[in-house]
């Protein structure tokens, strides 16, 4: 289990990461989402023990990452946002190097390498030179290397960036599979929908602050407690706006494209009551519907597009 306890990083006056708290369990695939400069990479580097936090810590299976980095390192696999591979050697030689560097016994190396090659679909390229691989294959090779010592925590910093749609889908499949294998997977991205379909948990970070985190459906539900209704009146909208603003559950009305977008704090019951009341008051209503929220809206709603 990964338990992040008040992780904080300051660069001079800038607070890049502000007191993060979250917990992840084996099998969790955690989507870590935020705009540029939000602090994703900084957080991941701290979890990877490559950057010392200013305050706070995290434990992986009870081991403190700040006090015992050398004990945590064998338990984690890390794929940086900018990664490189050694050139001038073949895929197999590359993996053999890391197998040796992770002290995997010689007798097991061939099997381990075969397994990660198969998992990352690189078996056909096992004798190719590393620099002759395509970007997507290199990404998979980097992932294969991160898996060679069978880590329990995987930190993937924007693994899908620079990949074509097909390669993106493949890497998503792979991440899903890793979650199913019982690993804790933390994947960062700028884009929520990219992560939504294979993460079971998400966290949204902006300006170093974790705005929300939790199970995906729970977060969507939370946000829908404050929903938006689209009401399209026939004729002049002004009286309807005045009428709506008197409603206690209405928090704001925005006229846009001939419709009114109403921020409404009630549930379905209250929503039905509102419609009846409006009709009773003689308003002629052409459209009355709840604006459905997809994950992108959730993201846009939570973040304000500010960067630190």
């Amino acid at each position: 289990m990964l338990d992040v306890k008040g992780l904080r990083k300051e660069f001079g006056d800038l607070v890049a990461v502000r007191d993060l708290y979250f917990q992840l369990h084996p099998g969790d695939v955690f989507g870590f989402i935020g705009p540029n400069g939000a602090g994703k990479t900084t957080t991941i580097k701290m979890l990877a023990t490559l950057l010392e936090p200013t305050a706070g810590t995290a434990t992986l299976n009870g081991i403190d990452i700040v006090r015992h980095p050398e004990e945590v390192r064998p338990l984690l696999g890390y794929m940086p946002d900018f990664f490189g591979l050694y050139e001038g050697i073949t895929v197999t030689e590359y993996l053999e190097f890391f197998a040796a560097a992770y002290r995997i016994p010689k007798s097991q190396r061939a099997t381990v390498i075969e397994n990660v090659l198969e998992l990352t679909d690189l078996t056909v390229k096992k004798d190719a030179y590393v620099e002759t691989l395509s970007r997507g294959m290199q990404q998979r090779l980097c992932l294969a290397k991160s898996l060679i010592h069978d880590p329990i925590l995987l930190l993937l910093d924007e693994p899908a960036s620079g990949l074509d749609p097909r390669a993106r889908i493949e890497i998503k499949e792979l991440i899903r599979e890793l979650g199913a294998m019982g690993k804790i997977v933390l994947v960062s991205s700028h884009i929520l929908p990219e992560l939504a379909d294979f993460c079971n948990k998400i966290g949204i970070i902006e300006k170093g602050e974790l705005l929300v985190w939790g199970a995906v459906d729970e977060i969507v539900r939370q946000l829908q407690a404050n929903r938006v209704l689209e009401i399209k009146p026939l004729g002049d909208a002004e009286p309807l706006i005045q009428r709506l603003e008197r409603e206690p559950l209405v928090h704001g009305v925005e006229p846009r494209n001939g419709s009114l977008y109403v921020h409404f704090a009630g549930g379905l019951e209250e929503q039905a009551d509102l419609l009846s009341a409006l009709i009773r008051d003689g308003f002629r209503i052409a459209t009355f519907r709840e604006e459905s929220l997809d994950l992108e809206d959730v993201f846009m709603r939570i973040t304000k597009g500010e960067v630190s």
Partner: protein
Amino acid sequence: MKAKSENPLLAYHLFVFTRNRWRRQPLLYGAAAFGIALSYFFLFMLIATYEASLVVPLTIALLAICFAAPLMAYNLFSLEYEKHTWESLALTRLTAREILWGKWGVVLTRVAGLTLLFLPMLLVSEADSISAYAVIAGLLLVFSWGALLVSFGMWLSFKLKRTLSTASALYAGQVLVLLLTPVLYTLFTNNQARDVMPIYLVQSHSEAVWWWIFSFLHLRFLVDLNPFTTLLELSYLRDIYAFAYYDPYSERALYPYGLLYLKWGFTQSAFYLLLAALFAGLTYRGLKIAWRK
């Protein structure tokens, strides 16, 4: 835990990369090797034929080291930064000591190999009057200068994180230390220090110690610790018996004894090796801190 474990860094740098390079571009590397072998043979024959002074092959060896050692070390760590591979390496179970030895050991081995390549040349130079002291001191000096270059280069490439800056600093630094400083020193002092305490006056161990202290205080070390001038002096060792026989108290007869008391060549080598160890130590400390090893 304590068991002697393999060091994949060492093995890969020494064998795998080299083997693959040959495998992939046998013509290019074959041609380069052939060219080098040919020039070596030519020099070898020249030295053997003319029974050139010991200083000739030693100077060639030193020049080769001055040129090649920076090439061995300039990207040791900077490439890990530039290619974004250092994080993956830092996260493995390799210890800071193993990473240091993996890289340092490789370049030291190469410097030693390159130095030893010149041993046959040394042995055919001035064939009958050869001094074992001069051969050993000369080779050690060449190796130590190379060791200093690669260690400094390793540390610089760790600190600067840039391949190009490291390479330029190494070559520019050599021009400064080997050429400019001795020239400027000689220009400004008119080499007076040589007359104040000449080498032939050093005829005991304690005088030798004082001589070195004097050399440091008088900035004469800018010349005395220069590997090229050091090599030049080694040629005087050859005369040790010849002149001592005719005129045991002449300057020319005492000069070689002065060099022997000064442990000429060995003292300079020790100094270079000490500096080399210092830079390796600094790199080790850097790994401990920056890579949190």
